[in-house]
């Protein structure tokens, strides 16, 4: 067992040196491995059997068949390699994911410089695992989304991606192990709970005055149209009367802003709480409320919007992960 681990570690180290991580790869002789596939080995045995059959029956036609299949083996070695070499792969924008869900790694397969057509199926798998996805090179849509299990919150560095192809006749397996440099931030899995903080806010955890903000709910007043405002806010009636571009101003119900706090409790409850906090943040965000987050010594001032949401969730994901 220990020996196997050592071997694996050595293998990893060797791969690390041979194919260092990057966001973009061009397949070439530095990172391609090629070896007869299992069928290729069977095929070689077949060639040998034909040779023996032909020799023992002193039958030249069988010998020619055997030699022909053998030469085809040689020819397909190069064809296999040349089809695989030159493919360029680029990692797209990696999004976040929730624990227990799957992260999606978009990989763009780009034509090689000299625009030769590529054929055959390309199989994607994570290093040492089963094939996750297969695309056919002559007939595919970019990017190829590669799913990665993300069981725990924190930063997930995807393992090496193994790509392989059996083109043209399945006799050879061309493969490579690419390490795409990227980090997937895995948020805690949201755990449904009721939102006590809305009532709790009344007990002093609320902060700041009620404020009027732009929203979509209630008509407030008419203002001059400014470029960039949505067209459905334009007050077409007034425009039709020739009063110029006038847009309607709407307001949201002014909301209280909420503070979310991680209560100092036992570490066994920590993950549970983080999951609940994650749920609350998502709920508050979809309700359009303003919220702040206090995690240990770190405070995120109350705000709202997508950016704030991800800042908060990232904080949850990384909380106490560094140490």
């Amino acid at each position, binding site marked *: 067992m220990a020996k196997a681990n050592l071997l694996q570690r050595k293998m990893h180290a060797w791969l690390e040196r041979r194919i260092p991580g990057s966001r973009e790869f061009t397949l070439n002789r530095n990172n391609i491995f090629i070896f007869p596939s299992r*069928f290729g080995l*069977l095929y070689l045995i077949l060639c040998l*059997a034909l040779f*023996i059959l032909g020799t023992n029956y002193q039958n*030249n036609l069988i010998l020619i068949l055997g*030699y022909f*299949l053998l*030469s085809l083996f040689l020819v397909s070695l190069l064809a296999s390699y040349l089809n695989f070499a030159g493919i360029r792969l680029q990692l797209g924008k990696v999004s976040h994911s929730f624990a227990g869900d799957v992260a999606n790694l978009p990989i763009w397969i780009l034509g090689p410089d000299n625009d030769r057509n590529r054929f055959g199926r390309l199989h994607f798998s994570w290093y040492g695992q089963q094939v996750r996805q297969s695309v056919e090179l002559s007939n595919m849509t970019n990017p190829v989304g590669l799913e990665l299990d993300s069981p725990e919150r924190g930063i997930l560095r995807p393992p090496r991606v193994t790509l392989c192809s059996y083109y043209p006749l399945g006799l050879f397996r061309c493969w490579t192990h690419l390490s795409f440099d990227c980090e997937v931030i895995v948020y805690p899995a949201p755990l449904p709970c009721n939102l006590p903080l809305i009532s709790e806010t009344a007990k002093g955890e609320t902060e700041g005055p009620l404020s009027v903000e732009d929203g979509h709910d209630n008509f407030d007043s008419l203002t001059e149209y400014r470029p960039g405002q949505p067209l459905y806010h334009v007050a077409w009636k007034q425009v039709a009367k020739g009063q110029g571009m006038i847009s309607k101003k709407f307001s949201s119900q002014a909301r209280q802003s909420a503070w979310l706090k991680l209560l100092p409790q036992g570490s066994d409850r920590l993950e549970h709480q983080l999951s609940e906090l994650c749920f609350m943040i998502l709920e508050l965000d979809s309700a359009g409320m303003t919220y702040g987050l206090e995690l240990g010594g770190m405070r995120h001032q109350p705000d709202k919007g997508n950016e704030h949401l991800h800042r908060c969730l990232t904080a949850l994901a990384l909380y106490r992960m560094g140490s």
Partner: protein
Amino acid sequence: MPRLNPSAHNHAHLLLSLVLLVNAASLFEPLQLWILLLVLCAVIIRLSLFLNWQKHQLSVRTLNLLAVLSAIVLAYFGWQLGLLLGMLNLLVMASSLKLMLLASRRDYFQLISVQFFLIGTGLVFNQSIAFSMLYGLLTLLLLLSLAFHISPSSAWLQQSHRVGMLCLQALPIALLLFLVMPKLGPMWQMPTAKGTETGLSERVTPGDVAQLARSADLAFRATFDSIVPNTSQRYWRALTLEDFDGKSWQVHPYRQKLRERYRSAGLAFRPAIEGPSFDYQVIAEPTQQRWLFGLDIAISSDPQVWLSHDYQLVSRINLQSSLAYKVKSYFMAPLQEGIPELDNRLNLQVPAEGNPRTRELALQLRAEHVGDKAYLQAVKEVFTAGGFRYTLRPNPMPVDPVDQFLFEDKAGFCAHYASAAAYMLRLGGIPARMVTGYLGGEMRGDRYMSVYQYDAHAWVEWLSDQGWQRFDPTVLVSPLRLDYGLERAVAYEESFLLDTPLAGFRNIAWLNEFRLMLADMDYLWSRWVLGFSRENQQDMLKSLLGKLTPTRLALFGLALVLAIALLLGLYQLKHWLPDRSNPSAWYYKKALKLLAKQGLQRPSWQGPQDFNQEVAQRFPGKAARCFGQLTYHYMRMNYRPMSEQEQKASLSQLRRLVPQLKQALSEGGG
């Protein structure tokens, strides 16, 4: 649980099924009918899955039951089939069951390999040009199936083009390997198919040969180096039959045993040879037997061929496929006794009873003629003066056949004459035996001779003081047989090749010409492809290398490996050469490379014009001017319709600008 359909619109599976079907059909003769039906069922199942008429595969349990039943039936019938046919039937049965089961990739690849092997086995049974082409086609279809398996969504035409290219590339290498790889002798004895024997047999009842003479199949071909034997010398010996039981002649069991013993001890018979010889190569058609053909004292240097003490050429392996061997025939040398005592003893044996009238006649003749020569003459006179008739339609002679032939019917085929003559000689105390083989042969120009089954013949050899002498009683009755062949000899009764359809067309000149042309092609095929032997190979190497020393052979092997590597490299040459299909892009790339050397790389998202500005900032002066012009011409050529004149002008500009840029950059750098 129903299994899903992996074959719906799967061209790989369709092609595989088709190949299995044709493969099995081409093996119609050696296969059992029920196995062919099983194959047909499997193909129909697969076809309906392909067309998605049938949505689910057969369940594994049903298939297992079917497999067990088939195995039992095959075990029951296969018992009598012999090893080769048994294995072949098993292989086809297993592939048809596998085809019904076919689901995983592994099944598919196994089945493909078995199909390739079946094609090889098919070539054991059929080696004509037509069959070889069929099997070549099947091989291509299998490869196409593999290509579809690997890249399923390509179109047929594209796929065939790619497979065709691969095959064209592989073919020269295959031929090189075939010509040069050392040809080995058989490593072990392979099983042969029992059953359908063609040609002569080791036991002759007069009348059998007449049956054989109705066949227009080819027996063998011979290519003579210099002298061609004239028609009266074309006595091709095949078998010596020394055991007579009153009706039939057969190879003497004792002789057979002795031959086995000598052969296993590796003791070949080396008769005294002298005088001129015919040098020729024989390409024997498959007979499933061991004996071969040769004229008179036939000596072969071929390791596959062995001469027994009764001057019979024997092959070391059964002729499952056609066999080519070289022979020297010393036609002037006498056939001395192989094993003197034994030859004498074996060839004087006569059955104790039967054929009383023949005995009486022999006794009488022997009493009248003292010397062996005189007695032989008297026997000859029995045939010449007896009013005998040569016929392809002899009456059946179940009881005392020699009596019935000599005294009642007086009509028979060669074996009747040979049998009666040899019997009478033995009764007269002269050792005699029947020899079967072929008499005649159709010369095609001065190139080669074809000997057909209807040339089958039987004659007598008797032992004189100078060794074995040939005596052909048939010729006494029908001299035409010797000089013009069977067709003329039986022309009077119009019985020649009566059973063979299309035989009548032999008389139509152009059709006959066509037949002979096909025969020519077949001959070339047999001689150069089927008959390419170890000797041919060595001759070829000798003519290439001179003397075959180990160093030369080793160097030659090395050269071969290099040649193959070179060929492989040559095929892919265009991938390693820069792409010059778009010359302006080629020059532009060259310029980009020069800039990259100076540390300025164009990112893939940057257009040529933007990049030009960047260059202008980094390398102001002459280099920027050069590159600016380069970019201008490159863009003009690629994005603006131009006349040929303008294109030429732009191209020459580009050609001029690249070295200028190089110079400017190096000056800037220095």
